[in-house]
């Protein structure tokens, strides 16, 4: 499968503000591709450039081999599901869905059969003659999707489509979107600030920050092998061990790190750093194990001793904050046993924390400010 929809080296400034800086994404045919980032990262601007509402200062928009950069939105075979649905309030559900077909001058019988097919797909036949004000948020969402898809676009753009829905409905709509995507099989460009939505729906994700793209990859690549501290901290939660220096390299790819204010650790040298180079590693909280008993020695295992500073019990899992010298590690542990019959970990308990050297990941870029993106930043951090 070749690249089908491309945004090539896009730059867009508003006044002196650089909203998007030299960003490139390429979307394959039939792919669900997400733009993920905090508000103000430029993802909506990129989407509006894809739709044709904004012209890029630099760069090109290519659809199926054709340069469509200069085409207005009404001449692009691209449709959008808007953030707040943007359903026409004076039209019924039926007329909303039929809008694009009527503009295109399709025959009455074609419009009727296509609108009915869409109503069937979104399961809203009985609400066809209601105005948008009379249906629920989830129903509006489905109408917005049907209204876009009825035009048989090559690419469907979705701008925070689930942002206005409550949590349960959001999960249900996520499954529904997945089903609709399977049914129509076109490319989706999905913009969201919600990592959960992006992770569960996408084939690939582009993580954006301050107008540029930090990393593009599958959800697993993005989560397990973040290239920058921003990606590591924005998606999920993590621990940064930022003062490392490679002191010994092993033949099998592992290396020993010496850290300031933390015991030495072993980790996989993901970026082939030479001995003496400074490195930062990120370890996800769920990769860490916490225990009273000292874990057995193992060649590639790290074990460090610490003191429990805080505990958050969630039922199915517990989050522990453990002070290890100058660092505070956050540890996420599944409660797979009956806790009442066990010795429970309490505040100020001395515990062991262990992880495999392969479970950390070496970052290519580290920015200290990204520590603030963590779920609970260390209050004692420098």
């Amino acid at each position: 499968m070749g690249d089908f929809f491309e945004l090539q080296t896009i730059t867009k400034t508003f006044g002196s503000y650089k909203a998007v800086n030299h960003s490139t994404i390429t979307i394959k045919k039939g792919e669900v591709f997400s733009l993920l980032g905090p508000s103000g990262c430029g993802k909506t601007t990129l989407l509006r450039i894809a739709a044709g509402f904004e012209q890029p200062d630099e760069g090109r928009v290519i659809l199926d081999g054709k340069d469509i950069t200069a085409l207005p939105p009404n001449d692009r075979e691209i449709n959008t599901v808007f953030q707040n649905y943007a359903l026409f309030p004076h039209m019924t559900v039926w007329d909303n869905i039929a809008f694009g077909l009527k503009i295109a001058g399709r025959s009455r019988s074609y419009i009727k059969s296509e609108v009915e097919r869409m109503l069937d797909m979104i399961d809203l036949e009985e609400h066809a003659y209601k105005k948008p004000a009379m249906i629920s948020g989830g129903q509006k969402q489905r109408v917005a999707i049907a209204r876009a898809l009825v035009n048989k676009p090559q690419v469907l753009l979705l701008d925070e489509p689930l942002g206005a829905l409550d949590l349960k409905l959001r999960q249900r709509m996520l499954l529904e979107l997945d089903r609709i995507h399977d049914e129509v099989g076109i490319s989706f460009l999905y913009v969201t600030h919600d990592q959960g939505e992006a992770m569960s729906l996408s084939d690939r994700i582009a993580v954006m920050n301050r107008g540029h793209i930090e990393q593009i990859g599958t959800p697993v690549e993005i989560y397990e092998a973040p290239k920058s501290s921003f990606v590591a901290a924005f998606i999920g939660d993590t621990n940064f061990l930022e003062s490392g220096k490679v002191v010994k390299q092993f033949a099998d790819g592992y290396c020993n790190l010496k850290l300031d204010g933390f015991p030495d650790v072993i980790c996989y040298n993901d970026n082939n750093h030479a001995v003496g180079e400074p490195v930062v590693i990120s370890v996800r909280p769920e990769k860490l194990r916490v225990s009273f008993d000292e874990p057995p020695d193992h060649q590639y295992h790290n074990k460090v001793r610490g003191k429990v500073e805080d505990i958050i019990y969630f039922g199915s899992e517990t989050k522990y904050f453990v002070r290890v010298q100058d660092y505070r590690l956050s540890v996420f542990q599944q409660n797979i046993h009956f806790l009442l019959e066990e010795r429970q970990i309490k505040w100020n308990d001395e515990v062991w924390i262990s992880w495999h050297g392969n479970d950390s990941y070496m970052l290519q870029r580290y920015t200290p400010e990204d520590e603030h993106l963590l779920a609970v930043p260390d209050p004692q951090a420098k």
Partner: protein
Amino acid sequence: MHHADRHKRPPEWGLTMPSFGWMTLFFLIPSVLIFLIAFRPALPNGGIGEGWSLSAVKSLFDPSYPLVIWRTIWVSAICTTLCLGLGVPVAYYIARLPETKRRWVLLLIILPFWSNFLIRILAWQTLLHSEGPLKQLLEFLRVMDPHTTLLYNVWVVLTVLVYTELPFAILPIYAAAEKFDFSLLDAARDLGASQFRAFWTVFLPGIKRGLLTALLVVLIPAFGTYAITDLVGGTQAEMIGNVIARRVLSDKNYPQASALSAALCLVILTPMLIALFTQRRQNGGAAK
């Protein structure tokens, strides 16, 4: 709940009573009186006679009236069309301005209200007068014959009427446009509509209420206008308002004036009520 018990809220009718009383005293009762006076005989030297008579109502069929009524209708209709036609783009433009600029432009639009209505009409009279600057300029440029006049025709009336009513059209349309969700225009464009089509099929229906208000607010005063026609229109441009004024001020024939006013009132009220009822039926049950 406890709160409501302790401080008894005044009943709802208590709140509407003052405005209801005001409207009854100064609007409803006078209107009914006008309808009644239309059926009274007129005294020969002015005033209202005893008993009942149909002579004032019959006077509505005066052969000079149809022309005046026709002129009233078409002048008000064109005035309203122009005001809405100019009001919509202006309101659209203001609604899309950034907040701070918006306030200044709105101020400019209501600025004319700071000087008295009659003074503004007299200013037009001065401007268009034979010795006035505009006429002088046109004469100098040989565009106009010195023996003709800019004043005293129906087009001047129309111009000044549009000038007077335009702010009243812009304000309600702007109020509706300001609440309009402009992302709907993006949605229409996205679905294939040209800019014009999006404007026509999405923006105009979206500001329907504002348009309707503007229509009434412009049409009704235009229908009853007489000061403008009096000052810049002359007899050539006489409208129904001038006839009523003449019946009151010079003829002192109150029954005939009342009959004309009542007829004017009915002409305006009937389509309005029809529009109101059909609209209510269309919206029937819709939660708004």
